[in-house]
């Protein structure tokens, strides 16, 4: 079975631009979560979606938004990019929104110049 997939693998943007990152969960998984991982740190929670509804939001500015589609795939959007948004963006999927192990994708490396 395919694991969590993310696209693109790498992305370079300039300050002020916006970016869209995509994630496809493991087949049968209905929940997707997004994390930001800055170099040398652990992943930090951004959003969780289950059945197309937002179920949790971390301490990130409104420039960050996400959505989940009927096929359970998800997009993370970041507007007005800042240098500090440079990070590895990780998507994780789980069967439901409670008490389930999260399985991570390979991540999207975003560099903001």
């Amino acid at each position, binding site marked *: 079975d395919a694991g969590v997939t993310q696209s693109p693998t790498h992305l370079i943007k300039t300050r002020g631009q916006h970016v869209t990152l995509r994630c496809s969960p493991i087949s049968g998984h209905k929940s997707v*979560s997004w994390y930001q991982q800055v170099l040398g740190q*652990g*992943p930090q929670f951004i959003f*969780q979606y289950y059945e197309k509804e937002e179920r949790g939001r971390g301490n990130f500015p409104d420039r960050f938004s996400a959505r989940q589609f009927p096929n359970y795939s998800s997009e993370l959007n970041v507007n007005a990019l800042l240098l500090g948004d440079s990070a*590895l963006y990780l998507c994780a999927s789980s069967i439901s929104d409670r008490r389930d192990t*999260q399985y991570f994708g390979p*991540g999207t490396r975003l560099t903001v110049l």
Partner: protein
Amino acid sequence: EDQVTQSPEALRLQEGESSSLNCSYTVSGLRGLFWYRQDPGKGPEFLFTLYSAGEEKEKERLKATLTKKESFLHITAPKPEDSATYLCAVRKENTGNQFYFGTGTSLTVIP
């Protein structure tokens, strides 16, 4: 304040030299503690889930244990391919499936 602290930050072992990584937590209402392995530039790879104090899980050279305040990841006779960053994460009550991660322990196993 809720915290997840991993120690040491970095660990160098000779091949075959067993050791333990620590994850201490101060969270209200623990609803699961998770260990992941992460290779450079890649996503975390799931290793173990622990739910209650006294629980233990094993996989090959790794063994995870849980108490009311901390978890240990024991590595027995490590090999160079065990070199990676090991991340600990917790899930708290009333936060859905949101994980809180520590900063990780970077393990290097020297041949």
